[in-house]
């Protein structure tokens, strides 16, 4: 049973902007029945201002596919083509309040349909054609190396499982898994970080509030709490106000003479590293 947010459930129950625009200014089509999801996006664009006046969608797919498509149309209405071209799959997932990891590929599908539509507006055909240099890595779901690398880059993916969740590659017969691993290793080697198993998130874009808060909590749980717990201590996130993070130390940390040092060297430095350079940590009782 998928753990869907209320927003996903709502947009699946009552999807907005279902349909087709008559004589559309742009059409984007991705997916197929065989793949298990397909999306046809049609747009009405004002040629002068390049503003997206209307957007409609038709989707074949599960609840998150339908919700992602509907969310996309809501997001782009009123944007200029240029603004819309900056939308990533993470934005769609954030708009929905998050998607289960295994369903992230639905948000990727939304982004691809939008790109196809924008390309179509600029003169390309509605259905995305594969560029010559692209190589199909996953035959079961027709996923190219270009798509995989892009997903890795934009979503900071580290494992094959994550790649499957975002692109479906490797989710069929599984024969392409070694190739996916290779792409992962090569990509992260180029970035100069540890590689496939490291979990360091590198956020290149401005974080939304929701992402920031989630990231702070995740970093505390993953990077900070284990080492405190091994000494009998613990830490609790109390509040976040702008770039100030308020925490409370617990357990053996309370009586510890070096607690102040812990705050700066461990807690603050980890949050600066994993979330944002401007974070300041303050202890509260």
């Amino acid at each position: 049973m998928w753990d869907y947010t209320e927003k996903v459930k709502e947009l699946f129950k009552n999807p907005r902007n279902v349909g087709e625009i008559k004589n559309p200014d742009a059409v984007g089509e991705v997916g197929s029945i065989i793949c298990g999801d397909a999306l046809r996006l049609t747009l009405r664009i004002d040629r002068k201002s390049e503003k997206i006046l209307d957007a409609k969608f038709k989707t074949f797919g599960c609840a998150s596919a339908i919700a992602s498509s509907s969310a996309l149309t809501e997001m782009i209405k009123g944007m200029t083509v240029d603004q819309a071209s900056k939308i990533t799959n993470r934005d769609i997932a954030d708009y929905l309040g998050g998607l289960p990891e295994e369903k992230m590929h639905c948000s990727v599908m939304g982004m691809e349909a939008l790109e196809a539509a924008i390309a179509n507006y600029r003169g390309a055909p509605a259905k995305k054609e594969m560029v010559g240099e692209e190589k199909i890595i996953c035959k079961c779901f027709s996923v190219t190396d270009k798509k995989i690398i892009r997903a890795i880059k934009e979503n900071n993916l580290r494992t094959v499982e994550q790649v499957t969740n975002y692109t479906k590659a490797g989710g069929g017969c599984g024969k392409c898994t070694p190739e996916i691993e290779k792409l992962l290793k090569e990509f992260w080697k180029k970035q100069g970080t540890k590689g496939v198993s490291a979990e360091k998130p590198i956020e290149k874009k401005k974080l939304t509030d929701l992402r920031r808060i989630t990231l702070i909590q995740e970093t505390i749980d993953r990077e900070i709490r284990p080492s405190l717990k091994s000494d009998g201590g613990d830490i609790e996130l109390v509040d976040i106000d702008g770039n100030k993070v308020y925490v409370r130390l617990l357990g053996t940390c309370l009586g510890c003479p070096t607690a102040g040092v812990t705050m700066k060297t461990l807690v603050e430095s980890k949050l600066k590293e994993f979330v944002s350079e401007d974070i300041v940590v303050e202890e509260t009782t």
Partner: protein
Amino acid sequence: MMKKVYADNNATTMTAPEVFEAMKPYLTGEYGNPSSMHTFGGKIQKKVDAARESVAELLGASDPSEIIFTSCGTESDNTAIISTLRSYRDKRHIITTKVEHSAVLNLCRFLETDGYRVSYLDVNTDGMIDLSELKGIIGKDTAIISVMYANNETGVIFPVEEIAEIARQRGVIFHTDAVQAVGKIPFKMTKLPADLLSMSGHKLHAPKGIGALYVRRGTKFTPFMIGGHQEHGRRGGTENVASIVGLGVACKLAGRAVDEEGTRIKKLRDKLEKALLQKIPDFRINGHKDKRLPNTSSMGFEFIEGEAILLRLDEKQIAASSGSACTSGSLTPSHVLRAMRIPFTFIQGSVRFSLSRYTSEEEVDYIIDSLPPIVEQLREISPFGAGKR
């Protein structure tokens, strides 16, 4: 209708009230261990044996000693196959089908990595296997043939008596995973020449966490769950007394109702299919029309997706399941429907309804009324459709 309509009985069934009542003493005051020397424990052994007799009776077995209690159908399957391989160590070939439950399929795939050779029999578009293909593959090296009695997704019933006969003639052990069939159709092990048979409690209104393995008298057997001397040294582990007692009662109830399953429930299932065939276009029923369990209906709706259908049904309090990729837990759709070479367009939009003796005609009518508007609504959202592809 505010009450939920549960139409997913092949996934699991309600524990019958009589079953639960019978279990209560063994979860409260009567907690003795059947293996104990004192009366408090020892008297429990009699209850376990009484339950064993009830299971044997439902299966039409010649003797209760042919029944071993396990924790579930999966354990029964694992025990049957691994025990056979260990009992015939020089034989390294296994024959099974492409549509088995993952308890058998994944075990076979694992055994392949361990050096065993496995042949997976094909099925046709009705879900049936070709007996001549089977005959052609059996060799001196074949240790076991494992073919399910009835398929969990489509309900298709294999010609198990014939397969068992072929196996017997060639001197090969035959096992059948009858988890979906026991309790739904009559069994007579004295007439069915199978050596091993798996069954599972929670498919026939007993609780989850209990199963049984039928081992024909005289069959070479090597224990799988190795530990104490419970189950006459054949399955270690302190007996799940309460659930065993529950299974015994469930088998008694199933034996009494099995004719009803064959007629009343079949009528309801057929009514459901007939009505939907009339009301919904681009729709098909999967599996052999007649050789099926009486309660199961696997359907395909073109142009729309299974999870979406199930969630819409869920909004109306109707519980069912699907063979689509999104509902499978992996990214691939039902291996059973794929093996039957059913078109992808129907597999992605597949739904399975499985009824029980507790299903009322009113509930079936509610499904008949609810489904067409759901299909229509999802088809409006879909980019595919008659002539729109």
